[in-house]
């Protein structure tokens, strides 16, 4: 299994080396798909649709239902043309959704030259340079060989017929005045289904099949159309110039200090002291040499390069407020800040930044901005960047000075603790499972040597999430004091709901409960010879056995539920799936859950009759087992 490199190390690298990091606050520009007006004249294989019909799960074709919002390449073979946008880009963030039928192949060429491969790679254990999400290889025609392709860090591909997301942050090559290239094109970040698959991958030249062999400062997007059907929607672009930055100048700081209080005194009543304003080299409150309990106000000028809408952000350990050009840009909420997008003409504007530091830890503030063609970056004075570099240099020198013998060898900085299942078995780990809105406290993660894992909730007998990858990062569970006690999944994941699986309903029209029943109790689990758990629960008089087995070829989770006993006055019900919409497939025993998010299959020999009911604007796939006094056995598979 391909080893996914340290996630936290990547995040750390992201924040230090590359000031572009977190997701954009400002909306991107959607590329309209009500017609093909955003593209150069296209071949007939490209159409606009409202939804996908047919059976894109099983057949290599896409049926485009009339309407707008989705872009479809209907050509099933090599006869289709490529599609090229009628606009060009340089630095850019591009995000989109795509859907592939089985064995189909396409690609997104940034600047028409650098391809991100789109392929049905569902089930591929070790993705290579041709698999979905790969940055395609370059090609030497004479020798008929490729080179420099970059495989994705992990295979995040979903099953055919399901919508997938892709987000690309791309830096165009740079050229000097005489046209010589000074830096290569770079895929700064690529996320497939929300999981990082590339970071800072350079491409030294156009990849195989590029529309132009020579490189340029800008180019259009080219979408491959000659290798099978594909559908796209929600194409959003955010063009940037990474060299354009917002800086501060003529900064002064003014500190208001709260005098030291004795332990017994009420802090709020301690007297304050205003210090005179001084010139400030930067907006780093850690540099002020102040004790806890102080407020600093920075004022000065901010250089706005382009006219347009700006969004600021702050990462800090205090309370932050920002005004730019007299308009509020950041207001404090507790904790954190809320940004208010503001329109600013290009030029110098006044700014006022207030930072209030409480008692915790070192004062820390990082101010970020994004704007028109301006990617998110840290904002400070121009000199502060030099100063930060000098600080690092001095620290390194200081450490070299202290040549005292070290009592114990310095521990290497550990930022993750990755645990994986054994080579041929199952690994379990109870802990707190990350979940929105709140981590789940009585839950367990089950990892399989197939590479397919799931998290299960004891209070609801629900599969919370499934993913593929190395299994878990237990750094926030086992390192040091481990405040969060989190068992974090590593790998692209599909998250489900957390409503109880088995419920007692007064009638078939009653909505599903969202809370665990008072008569519910989890009774633990047993392990079979391979280590697979069977979970036991009780709901009033009903005993429930729940066994979930992961498989990898093809990837799925098979669930076997057994219910024994009966609660006679109310109806026993089982919730198989819950989503905004659930669509049965033609064979009558498979369902498409949600907006083509995943599949739920029921085996042919099943004689139970689940059905879809719509309550409060959402679909539920439910089963009301007959009250026969016999055990109820329900099996179904989740495929994604």
């Amino acid at each position, binding site marked *: 299994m391909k080893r996914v490199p340290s996630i936290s190390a990547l995040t750390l690298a992201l924040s230090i080396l590359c000031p572009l990091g977190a997701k954009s606050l400002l909306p991107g520009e959607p590329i309209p798909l009500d017609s093909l007006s955003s593209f150069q004249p296209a071949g007939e294989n490209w159409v606009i649709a409202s939804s996908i019909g047919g059976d894109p799960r099983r057949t290599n074709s896409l049926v485009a239902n009339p309407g707008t919002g989705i872009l479809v390449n209907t050509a099933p073979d090599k006869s289709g043309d490529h599609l090229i946008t009628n606009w060009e880009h340089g630095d850019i963030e591009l995000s989109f959704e795509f859907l592939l039928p089985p064995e189909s192949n396409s690609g997104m060429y940034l600047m028409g030259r650098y391809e991100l491969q789109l392929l049905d790679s569902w089930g591929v254990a070790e993705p290579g340079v041709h698999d979905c999400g790969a940055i395609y290889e370059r090609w030497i025609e004479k020798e008929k060989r490729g080179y420099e392709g970059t495989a994705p860090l992990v295979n995040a591909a979903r099953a055919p017929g399901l919508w997938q997301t892709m987000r690309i942050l791309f830096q165009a090559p740079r050229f000097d005045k005489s046209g010589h290239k000074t830096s290569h094109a770079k895929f700064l970040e690529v996320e497939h289904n929300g999981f990082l698959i590339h970071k800072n991958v350079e491409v030294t030249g156009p990849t195989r099949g590029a529309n132009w062999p020579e490189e340029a400062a800008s180019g259009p997007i080219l979408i491959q159309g000659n290798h099978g059907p594909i559908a796209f929607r929600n194409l959003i672009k955010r063009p940037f110039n990474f060299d354009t930055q917002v800086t501060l100048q003529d900064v002064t700081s003014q500190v208001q200090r709260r005098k030291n209080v004795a332990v017994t005194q009420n802090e709020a009543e301690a007297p304050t002291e205003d210090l005179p304003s001084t010139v400030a080299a930067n907006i780093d409150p850690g540099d002020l040499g102040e004790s806890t309990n102080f407020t600093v106000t920075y004022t000065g000028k901010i250089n706005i390069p382009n006219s347009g809408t700006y969004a600021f952000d702050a990462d800090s350990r205090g309370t932050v407020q920002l005004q730019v050009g007299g308009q509020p840009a950041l207001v404090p909420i507790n904790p954190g800040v809320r940004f208010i997008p503001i329109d600013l003409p290009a030029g110098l504007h006044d700014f006022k930044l207030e930072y209030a530091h409480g008692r915790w830890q070192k004062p820390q503030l990082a101010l970020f901005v994004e704007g028109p063609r301006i990617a998110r970056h840290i904002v400070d004075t121009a000199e502060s960047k030099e100063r930060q570099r000098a600080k690092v240099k001095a620290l390194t020198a200081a450490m070299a000075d202290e040549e005292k013998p070290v009592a114990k060898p310095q521990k290497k900085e550990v930022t993750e603790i990755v645990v994986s299942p054994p080579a041929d078995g199952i690994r379990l780990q109870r802990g707190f499972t990350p979940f929105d809105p709140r981590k789940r406290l*009585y839950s367990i993660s089950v990892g399989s040597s197939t590479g397919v894992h799931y998290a299960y909730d004891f209070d609801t007998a629900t599969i919370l999430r499934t993913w593929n990858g190395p299994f878990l990062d237990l750094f926030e569970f086992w390192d040091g004091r481990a405040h969060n006690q989190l068992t974090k999944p590593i790998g692209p994941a599909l998250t489900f709901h957390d409503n109880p699986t088995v419920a007692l309903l007064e009638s078939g029209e009653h909505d599903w409960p969202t809370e665990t029943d008072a008569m519910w109790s989890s009774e633990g689990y047993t392990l079979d010879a391979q280590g697979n758990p069977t979970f036991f629960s009780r709901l009033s008089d009903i005993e429930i056995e729940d066994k979930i087995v992961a498989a990898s070829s093809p990837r799925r989770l098979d669930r076997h539920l057994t219910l024994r006993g009966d609660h006679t006055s109310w109806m026993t019900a089982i919730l198989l799936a819950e989503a905004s919409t659930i669509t049965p497939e033609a064979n009558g025993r498979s369902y498409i859950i949600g907006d083509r998010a995943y599949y739920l299959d029921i085996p042919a020999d099943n004689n139970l009759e689940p059905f879809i009911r719509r309550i409060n604007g959402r679909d539920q796939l439910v089963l009301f087992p007959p009250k026969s006094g016999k055990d109820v056995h329900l099996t179904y598979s989740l495929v994604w």
Partner: protein
Amino acid sequence: MKHPFFLSLCLSAAFAVSTLAQNPSAEERFALPSDELVKLENLYWERTPIPIPDDIILESSGILALPNKELLVTTRRGEIWHIAGAYDPIPNPKFTLFASGLHEPLGIIAAPTGGYYVAQRPEVTHIRDTDGDGRADSFKTLARIPISGSYHEYAFGPKLAPNGNLRVTLNVAFGAATQSPVPWRGWMIEITPDGQIIPIAAGLRSPAGFTVTSQGVWLAAENQGEWVGSGRITQIDPGDFIGHVASLAWSREPGSTVSLRPGDIPDSADPMHEVAKRIPGIKTPAVWLPHTIQGISTAGLIEDVTGGEFGPFAGQFYISDQGQSKIVRMSMEQVKGVWQGASYNFREGFECGIIRLTMGEDATLWVGETNRGWGSVGPKEQGLERLTWTGKTPFEIQEVKARSDGFLLSFTQPVDPVIAADPATYQVTSFTYKYHQTYGSPPINVEPHQVAKVEVAADGLSVRIALPKLREGYIHEIKAPGLLSAKSGTTLLHDTSYYTLNQIPFGARIIPLAAMENPMAHQHDAGAASSPSTSEKNQTTVPTSWKGKNADQFITLGTEPGLKFDQTLLTAKAGSRVQLTFNNVDDMMHNFVLTTPGTGQTVGAAAMQMGVSGEGLSFVPASADVIAHTTILQPESSQTIYFTVPSIPGDYDFVCTFPGHSMLMKGIFRVTK
């Protein structure tokens, strides 16, 4: 404020005065005195670390001694390891994984019906190997434990109660608006075989160690924190409230055995025994373990039921400490129906913080260790050790018991009668702690006692000391550093004991009643842990000699976890004026002390010798080597001091002199030309 039970750390070993009879020089006493003591202790109770394979992280959290000299050890990482061969003279045991995937188990016992009961964070589980293949395959939930998601919500135990139920104690949650956000946090509970939870007692905070004695008496350890001035052992009956207020949030919940409400407990900082007299339902501790002297994070608690095979202390108790990586001993008696007793240092020098003690076969004491992310005197982060009696008995205080006019001290060897008969041989001081919401407490109302008379028993194995003044409810420190063994001429291996005098017994006196003073007239100290000192070396306002000018240099110094300052090199120009702000962002108390070159450790060692009075002086000894200092700062507080840098360039020292910290928490203050 986050203050878990595994908390602040102190090197206590140096408190024990060297037992070498001659007067050792200052250098000898300060040069790693703990090594001397540890070597001596090892002659009597031998400590053997168990080698652990490199690929196993054995943060021991629970130990069960199995038949056939095998062990089951639970770990913080949710594993249960079967260990064979740990009893071998030179152990090189075999580790087999019995179970894994648990959520922070903190104890394992044998289940009468087969298998084992394990207390995990979210539940108590019955774990069994039903197919006999050496791997557990059944994990049945016995009882779900209410948790809110705080990492401090530990579940300790389980212990088998005489009535067949299990008992578990539940740590409070820290860092939230309330420390008891879900039912029974801060309670001792019982769990029936069918999984029902029965609350027993409330007021617990971090009851990491608890036990039921061979006489059926339930004892629980407690860790210093809010409402808990120092670590201690409390005897628990159903319906007791033992002090920490958060758990009273559930006193009106069905099943509650306690009727006190949170508002019933005053935040007066009066001694707990005085508050308990005014408010019925508060149970005061049986034995206090003075903070930094006998532990800082009490964790393991067991009774010596070996009947003499583990040494002369049969029937007494051993208590392990996580932070100080040591074991102390406790003796108990009942006076007027109330449990009380004394604590004594026992064994130091373990490799890591000790959280579990289990007696195995052949009177082998198994010591389970982890520091779980907090510092510990022992440098390792995990471990398993064993302690066995070598058969040799040291010269020790056997036991301290209360008498109507003083104390009866018994010894393991006859004492030199001349020295023993001299009242000046004994130094007695009494003190107590504040009972308040603030974290911890310094010793307060500290008073020395006169020893008026001593009667030495004819066999020399005990002495009775009579004090004109006894203070009911107070902890009495009894030191006899000069006492000699008649046989060997050595001093006591551990010469200090702390007796919690909850009740003064009736009985015949050896000094007349008229000589006894009224113990009630005491004065309250100001003694706050961050009491501002007016010493000129602790200048917290801009010195007038600076004539309104700012400092030449501003230094901000903080802390990092694991007893560290956040910088180990500070630099300043000779003769310059410095404004230094020390931010204690740790969850332990610290100070900053600037000393002359090369004297940081000496000053730190001298601070350790300051004893109970040290706290009021911020653990800064009166020494010419001290240039400037802050007072002791509570967690999450700071202090700014002003001083002038010495005029002679060089590498000066700065240290934290809170007892035991200076060896790790230090840096260089470089004075340049």
